[in-house]
């Protein structure tokens, strides 16, 4: 059980889990790909139908399992494929973001952004930006379950 977090041969690299809504932000990610934009490999995307599907518990689970940062991305307000999903998530995730900050997480660890399907550039920028911010912060130890970490390096 080494105390090292995410340490690879080349030094520490953060893991950023991004939950993207299917209709806007995931499509924005597709556009970033189609346009051959580039962003750090640290970001891994999980597709959800809508930012309204984002249960804050998914975020906490990601931190437990070793994510150094979590980014939820959804359609811009007014553009939700399901009309109101992002309006709902805006309230939920705002309250939740402040709660996790209150618990001692740095604000950069959990972020929410609106990225439309036409904003491939914004997608790449946001992914780059959060990666840089997390790199500057260093590894996240908060809420990280040491028992999961002990085994990660061997997979």
């Amino acid at each position, binding site marked *: 059980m080494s105390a090292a977090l995410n340490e690879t041969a080349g030094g520490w690299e953060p893991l950023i889990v991004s939950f993207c809504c299917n209709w806007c932000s995931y499509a924005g990610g597709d556009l970033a790909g189609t346009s051959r934009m580039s962003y750090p490999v640290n970001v891994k995307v999980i597709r959800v139908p809508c930012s309204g599907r984002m249960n804050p518990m998914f975020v906490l689970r990601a931190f437990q399992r070793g994510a150094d940062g979590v980014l939820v991305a959804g359609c811009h*307000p007014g553009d939700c494929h399901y009309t109101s999903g992002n309006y709902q998530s805006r309230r939920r995730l705002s309250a939740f973001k402040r709660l996790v900050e209150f618990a001692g997480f740095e604000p950069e660890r959990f972020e929410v952004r609106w990225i439309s399907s036409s904003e491939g550039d914004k997608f790449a920028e946001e992914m780059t930006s959060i990666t840089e911010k997390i790199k500057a912060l260093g590894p996240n130890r908060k809420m990280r379950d040491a028992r999961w970490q002990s085994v990660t390096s061997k997979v």
Partner: protein
Amino acid sequence: MAERNVESVNKVREAVSQDLLGGRIDLLLGWEKGHYWWQSRPLFARSEADLEKLAWDSFCAVNLSRYLLEELKDHDKVGVLVKGCDARAFNRLLQDNMVRREQVILYGLPCPGMLDYNRLVEKAGGAPLEITEENGRVIIKVGSGEQEAQRDDLLLDKCKDCRYPDPAVYDQLLFSPQGEKEVTERFKTVEELEEMSAEERFGYWEKELSRCLRCYACRQACPFCSCRECFVEQENPRWQGRAYQPSENFMFHLVRAYHGTGRCIDCGECERSCPVDIPLQELNRKLIKDINELYGDYEAGLDPEQEPPLLTYRPDDPAAFSEK
């Protein structure tokens, strides 16, 4: 206090016995004394003899509304004694469709705040034998003599910053209202914590939460925790592991608090119930404070018709993150 107390208990008893013995309610949820005079426990009264045990004094902290969840399965009509917080708890349950208004008769008890035995001991410097209350002052009798204290200094933590001591809902109000109270320190601890650095705050919570036994008293006592199946016990997915790891402690307490967003009535029963005194109320109050700041003032349990903040939205809502 003794005489005045007898008087007020009689008044409560008179009001409820008419209904209970007259068949208007099948059960009365009230309090009776515990092993000691400074303890009370729930009373489930069905008869005149039961009502003899009825108590209403400065030690009736237990919130009775929650018992409706079970008792309404067995009874058609239940009467409940409700303080300010208990009434808000009732409204909370009403909003969650856990109770039907017409099944319940609420006897409102404007509440002066409940006293904390440990504070009495502290103040008196020993085991108190008896107390007398007069005009906001409490005379505590101990073996060696008497000690006088301000009543407000002896309150339970949960009662200290109570803004609404009068029941927001009742069928019958048994005493004259206390009036809305001005509270200044409700968010004081939250603000102090907000002032800390992230690292300090995390350290604070890690330490506080490390005591958690996962006994779930906070949940069981809480009027917003009315789920039949808590996420804690669910198998698929296994949201919450049983291990006493810091990670699991945070998972439980952050999610418990988050589930109270816009729903917590700030009654403080969670914190009072905690056997290891985790400051749970500060998590709840953080959410109350933020919701009020972001989406407008909302006091859960005051008005069951008002839409809880997480069940509604405005297109021009602000966000706690950059929307650019």
